[in-house]
């Protein structure tokens, strides 16, 4: 797994049980990493009292038109989400 600024990524299409911070509207969608949000406690473990090592969280930019096929605004409009690295796979 090698993610860095500029990496095109796809958000994993998975549906694990429990608490997570990856909204469904970006699962399976492609975007580009624009920065590191930080190394943060893993919210998925934290929600159940665990801690574990902090995880890299990346700022990922998506084009609106890739998220919503019927998007009516400017095709250059974008959404940025902060996503935990284990939800991202580099796209080649």
């Amino acid at each position: 797994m090698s993610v860095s600024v500029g990496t095109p990524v796809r958000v994993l299409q998975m549906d694990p049980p429990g608490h997570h911070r990856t909204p469904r509207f970006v699962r399976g969608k492609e975007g580009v990493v624009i920065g590191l949000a930080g190394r943060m406690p893993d919210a998925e473990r934290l929600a159940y009292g665990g801690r574990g090592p902090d995880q890299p969280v990346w700022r990922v930019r998506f084009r609106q038109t890739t998220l919503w096929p019927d998007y009516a605004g400017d095709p250059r409009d974008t959404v940025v989400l902060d996503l935990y690295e284990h939800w991202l796979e580099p796209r080649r």
Partner: protein
Amino acid sequence: MTHAHDGHEHEHGHDGHGHGGHAHPHPRQPDIEDAPLTWHMALTEAMAELIVQKGLCTPADIHRTLEKIDAASPAAGSRLVARAWLDPDFRARLLQDVNAAAGELGIDAGGIPIRAVADTPDRHNVIVCTLCSCYPRFLLGGSPDWYKSKAYRARVVREPRAVLAEFGLHLPDGMQIEVHDSTAELRYLVVPVRPSGTEGWSEDQLAAIVTRDCLIGTALPVVA
């Protein structure tokens, strides 16, 4: 707490009440204790007691933190933006690290990292938390109810132009919109473009036009 009528929140006598002496029933304003203890209220009480009993902090610590949260207001964010408009070096530091830049002005932005996203002449930024209602409350105070509403959270991320138009913000053609969804441990603050017509203004004058909604991105500063 809302009071429909002035003066009806107390069970005071009716003489001198301005009703011409006729007795008509007033519904009693309920006290907080009249409502049943909710599950979350009980949990909060229990948690606070445990934390204090374990010696993790004192009741005074909890009280001070609550006071601090309640005292936070968008004025702090307005001041940061006004200073950034006046001082390019401060602006650079603000965009690098909001919490540290706020500290320079004696503003405690709290321990949760905040990122400033700067508008440009052709890109507008707007903030949301689609998952819940994350908001830089230590810096801006409590979030408005609409920010927490399902309608705002669901719609601004997929039809931002329509939502902004409902706020009265009509962005010109050619202006891109970037929506920032606060899905992790980062909070956001929008730094609008300094409007023309503000040349020579003081920091206080500038701060006065940077409203809360400007800091969320659902409004732009208006020069009266």
